[in-house]
């Protein structure tokens, strides 16, 4: 039988904020936990990121944003993925946002929001749990 295929994760920065040190730390932690990590670079649009996630068929798409534009960006990403009829991509958000936005995003279909300064190990375990719960696809 086949060895377990690594979990595929895409990490993306959307919008204007120009820092990716945090994302890179997370990328390394996920890699060290045996995952394949695809990093998209800075300043991507929601559509670019969503199409890339569909093509790469990632298990998890993690969007990090600090710019406060989450309430417009996440709906665009969700819609593009749905338009492409891609099923089973788990969407995670990271950054800073108020509680009521978190609740609303989860309502829309964002699986989990990891607030800034979540320890990498917690991100690793959250991803593992969500992918296990989703099952094969």
């Amino acid at each position, binding site marked *: 039988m086949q060895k377990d295929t690594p979990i595929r994760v895409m990490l993306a920065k959307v919008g204007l904020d120009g820092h990716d040190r945090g994302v890179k730390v997370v990328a390394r932690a996920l890699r*060290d936990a045996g995952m394949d*990590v695809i990093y998209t670079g800075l300043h991507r*649009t929601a559509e670019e990121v969503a199409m890339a996630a569909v*093509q*790469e068929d990632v298990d998890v798409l993690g969007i990090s944003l600090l710019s406060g534009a989450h309430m417009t960006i996440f709906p665009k990403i969700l819609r593009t993925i749905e338009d492409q009829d891609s*099923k089973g991509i788990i969407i995670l958000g990271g950054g800073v946002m108020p509680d009521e936005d978190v609740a609303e995003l989860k309502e829309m279909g964002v699986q989990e929001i990891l607030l800034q300064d979540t320890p990498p190990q917690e991100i690793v375990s959250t991803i593992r749990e969500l992918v296990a719960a989703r099952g094969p*696809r």
Partner: protein
Amino acid sequence: MTTAAPTSSRALVEDVRRGKVSAIARLISRTEASPDAVGDALAEIHRHTGRAHIVGITGVPGSGKSTLIAQLCRQVRDGGRKVAVVAVDPTSPFSGGSILGDRVRMSELNSDPDTFIRSMATRGNLGGLSRATLPAVDILDAAGFDIVIIETVGVGQDEVDVVRAAHTTVVASAPGLGDDIQAIKAGVLEIADIHVVSKCDRPDANRTISELKAMLTIGMQLSSRMDWRVPVIGTSAVTGEGLDQLLTAIDDHHAKMTETGELDRRRLRIAEMRVLKFAEDMLRDRFENDREGRVQEIAEQVARLELAPEAGARRLLGQIQKEIAS
């Protein structure tokens, strides 16, 4: 999240042939997870291949391949053709995971449904082409992409693998990488159908180009049986220099191969390589799976000097043959 039952691989094949992006992506994922599990689907896909021009691009890390490919893709799209890229990245041997960074250079292409980019880790496969790479190329071919580009990191055996899987091989070098042209390993020069020296906006690029040309003259560069003079093309992602020329050379090479019958010869060689590689993989899998069982039994007899190693190997292969043929 509750997901609906997974789409059958057979249904995916239909959608792949219609060019549905998510189906192409999903079938590639299933192939990566286990080529055996989607064997029937891949066989069906294989019947519908043969249209795409497969182009391998190789070169040492940092030689500008991904940047070049992004621009080449745009060039191909401007001409109205569809293009796909499989970017093969080596897996970190320590952790099993990897960071696939090529997307950073190619991201602006993402919103276009007729440009498909897929990153792949190598999983430590000898030769750098992951087991799923060529099936993925088949899938993209069957999906209707006119040009399928394979990017591999060229350090050693990898380049040779690319050339064996591609119709046209482009070798990229760049100024300022170690000892310039010496950074290109012996053996890589010969596999190129086209040489690119990237980063020609840099002043030291001219030296790299002339060194490369000199080496090609010494080596009396003759690509295979057809009359093809291997071009050395300087490109720059900054100024856009050389990109037209590169795409023209790629198309010319394809035309020439078609004209002379070289394309058929290369197809045959690729087919042969794939059959042999599959056979090797199958045997290796058997050996691994049987390690505890019959391999152990035979080894014990050999250790007790009741059986010669060669006779042991024959017995093992004989037993495996019966099972595989069925």
